[in-house]
Structures are given as C-alpha cells and as structure tokens.
C-alpha cells in the first residue's frame, strides 16, 4: 500500500546498491528528480533497465551508478548520441558497462510479461537480425500449432521501478495520461514501485472512464516532486525543454564539463530540491 514519503526517503528506503532498477517514461514523464536523488545517494552497481536510456541514464552512467544496462535505443532523441553511455561502452569510463541489448518490441513485450507474472515473452521479432547472435538472452520457441519459430526473451522483473506521473489522490492511487509508454507494465512488473507526482489531488476524476490508473496497492511510495520530469515533460503541466536536450550534447561530450554539471546541478542542487519539496 502506497506511503507518502519525501523523495529522498523513498529512494533510501526502496533502492539498494546492486538492485535492478527501471526508471521508465517513453520520452514523456521521465523521472529525472528520482534519478538525481539516486546519484546524490551514491548508489552503485545498479543494473539499469530502460527502453530509451535518455539523458537521465546518461547522467547516472556518467557518475558510475551502473554496472549493467538493459536497453533498446540509447540516443539523445532528436539530437544525437548519449556521450556518457558511449564513453562507458567504448572506453569503460568511469567504469565498464555490461549491456543487455534488445529491440523496442522485445523490451515492451518483456515488461508486459513481467507485469503478467510470466517467465518470458514471445513475439515475431529479430528476423534476420544479428542481435540474437550477440545476446544470449534472445532465444526462440516453436509455435505448437503452426511450427513458426518465434523470438523469446525473459520477462523483465525489476527490483524497483520508478516512474513520474501527473497526479496521485490522497489514498495513493496514481493517474498517468498522455503518452503512457510502458509505465503501467514497468510498475506492475517490479517487486517495489516508487511514483513521483506533480501533485496530490482529492479526486483523480476518472470515474467511469478507462484512464490509466495504478491502484495504491500496486505502489510502495508516492513522492511529491513538482517538475520531477524536467527537462522531459508532463502532459498538462509543462513542456519538454528541447533547448536543454540540445545543450546536453556539448555538456556530455566532455568528462570534466559533465562532472562540473553534475556537481553544480545535482549534488549541490540537493538543497534546492529539498527546498522545493518544502514549499
């Protein structure tokens, strides 16, 4: 049952060194505030899962949080490379990064399988691709009715999933809307789930609709974090900061400039974050 916690308490209580952690949000509602809190708490040896690592994982990988990355597209959307991710894979800086690489379809199916309590997902995929040659976690099964060979991947079962959502009600029920990505699946697939929200409201106002609602009993902690998805966006609250996404390219290209940015904006930004939640 969801508990309302300060973000720093939610992270320290539910995320442990060495955990398998998914911060999801398909371009929309990316939980940056939670990612920054993980950096501030100095968590390491994490296995990070995310379809599109985006800037948040570039930052976490760049400071050395991660031992391994499970992903399907690792770029700066609309801009180019994730330079910290590339530096880790190409040069092992600041530490070597193991990768478990898939396609989007595989990852989406694997989250759905995790949510459904299945050990694996099957789909029609990877036909003719080299990916199964380099990833032993891509296998196959034979359809017992048609003989067709189908791709199989293990279900994703994070220790912790963290998402950002628009609203929670006072019971801790959560509403996600707009581009909803794999957020529901990632939460339901996880052993523990943390949701940061823009605001807490009396009523989600979804009665009788088919809105995407996560009941409070599927979530362990709700943390109020207004702006918690910036520089990505929260539909109905604020827009994507495309200028920052573009600027990130030059910040992340250079190891020193990156470290300065983390120090200024994330580590020393701790006080600002704390103040923000107090208001």
């Amino acid at each position, binding site marked *: 049952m969801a508990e309302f916690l300060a973000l720093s308490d939610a992270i320290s209580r539910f995320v442990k060194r060495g955990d398998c952690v998914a911060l999801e949000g*398909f371009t929309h509602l990316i939980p940056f505030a939670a990612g920054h809190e993980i950096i501030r708490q100095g968590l390491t040896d994490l296995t990070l899962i995310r379809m599109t690592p985006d800037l948040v994982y570039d930052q976490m990988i760049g400071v050395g949080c991660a031992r391994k990355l499970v992903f*399907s597209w690792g*770029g700066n959307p609309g801009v180019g490379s994730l330079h910290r991710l590339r530096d880790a894979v190409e040069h092992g800086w600041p530490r070597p990064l193991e990768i478990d690489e898939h396609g*989007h379809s595989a990852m989406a199916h694997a989250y759905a399988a995790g949510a459904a309590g299945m050990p694996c997902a099957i789909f029609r995929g990877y036909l003719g691709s080299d990916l199964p040659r380099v990833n032993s976690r891509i296998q196959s099964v034979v359809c017992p009715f048609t003989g067709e060979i189908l791709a199989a991947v293990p279900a994703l079962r994070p220790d912790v999933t963290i998402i950002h959502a628009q609203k929670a009600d006072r019971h801790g029920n959560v509403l996600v809307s707009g581009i909803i990505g794999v957020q529901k699946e990632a939460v339901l697939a996880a052993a523990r789930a943390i949701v940061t929200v823009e605001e807490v409201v009396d009523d989600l106002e979804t009665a009788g609709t088919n809105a995407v609602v996560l009941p409070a009993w599927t979530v362990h902690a709700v943390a109020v974090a207004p702006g918690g998805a910036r520089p990505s966006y929260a539909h109905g609250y604020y827009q994507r900061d495309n200028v920052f*996404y573009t600027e990130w390219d030059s910040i992340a290209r250079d190891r020193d400039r990156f470290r300065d940015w983390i120090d200024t904006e994330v580590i020393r930004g701790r006080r600002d974050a704390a103040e923000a939640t107090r208001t």
Partner: protein
Amino acid sequence: MTYTATEMMTIAAARALRNEDICFVGIGLPSAACNLARLTHAPRLTLVYESGTIETKPHVLPLSIGDGELCDTALTTVPVPEMFQYWLQGGRITVGFLGGAQVDRYGNLNSTVVGDYARPKVRLPGSGGASEIATACQRIYIVMPHGIRAFVDKLDFLTSLGHGPTGRERREVGIKTDGPTLIVTDLCTMRPDPETKEFAVVTLHPGVTAERVRENTGWPVRFHESVDVTPVPEPHELSVLRDLLQRTAQAHGVN
C-alpha cells in the same frame, strides 16, 4: 526556386506516400517527409509514432518521438506494448521509414555499432523499433544521405533485415512483407531489382551525376537501364516544407 540537397531528399521521400498509407514514422527526416506529404498531396495519410500516438497531425515536427504535440493531435494514444503488439506486429502498417549509420546494396541496415560489437569503435543508439519495423510493415522506405561510410559493401552489424546479406534471406525465412522497396538519398532514388533485390539508381536528383553517386557508394552501384531525373521540387512543396521547419524551430526554441 533554389533548394538544398536535404530538401530534395525530403520532398522525394514525401512524394512516395499515398493517402491510403498508414505510416510508422521515425524522428528527423522521415517525420519531415511524412508531414510534408500530409500537408501537400496526401492529406488523409495516417501517421503512427512508436510512442503510441495513432493518426496524429502535428502542427510542428516533434523533436522526440514522444512529444506532447503528437498526443494532443492524435486520434488516440495507446500504451507502447500495445503499439508493438496490436499495431506494428498486427500487420496494420503499410509503410515504415528507416535509416541507419550503414546500409548495404540489399537494403539491410546497421544502427548498432561501427566496428566489433564487443569493442565498438562507435557505439550507435541501437535498434529501437527498427528490427521489427523492418519485417512487420508492408513496405520499407529508407531515407539516408549518401556517403561512402554509410553506403557500404558490408555492414559491421545487421540490425534490421532488408532483403538479407545475399538478397535471398528475406524470402527464404518466409517473411511475407515486401521489405525495402525504395531508398531516397540526397543524390538519388533507388529501387531493388525484382529478382536479385539489389538496389539500383532509378532517378538522379537534378544536377547530380552518376559519377558522384558512384564516388559516394561503397559498392559498385548499378543504375536502372533508363535513369530519369528526379522531378525538381515544386515551389509549393518547398514553401510548405520551409514553413513547417520554421514553425518547428520556433516552437522548440532551437536555433
């Protein structure tokens, strides 16, 4: 009206789309081409983005595949697993746009690594949706600027299947969709041979010589027996495209 090679490429790609098409759109050039088609000759063109937005009509181009603009202007927005299960794998998409760091003569694509997979020289973004888009859509249009490092004799890594390393693998595996039927570059357009599936130049963009295409292609590129000149961009096409890109730059505050 003068125009750039990129504008020519975008316009040539847009012209290949029809009102009846249901298009799986990637970010960048494909998005510009698809929306240009929608704003000119194919107003009923259906655009689907892998973020889950179906029948979206963005006023400005999205910078990312999941911009709010796509959701606001969509008929409906579905979860990403549903997008890949019911819509892409379900066989509902007629055209998928793909690009990559490398393409070979059979339309196979690499968007994973340059160099060896385990110790890459360049770690590229990876497949994203491409490995399944390549086989689930009825047809694939490839849009990539020409260049000797992109149009290669042999891929470093096959991310997304075109017609296969020898042009026969797609049929051999029993895949029923057509695969790549068009490559549009900044120099020319190419179509595959019906039998061998090797891509050959069918039109050269105005002012481009066969020699220039040869110099920028990493294999001994073939030309169709009657190579035409790509029709020059119409003023209307150019102005709609430029308006779209200008609106987009303003909206994003980029440039």
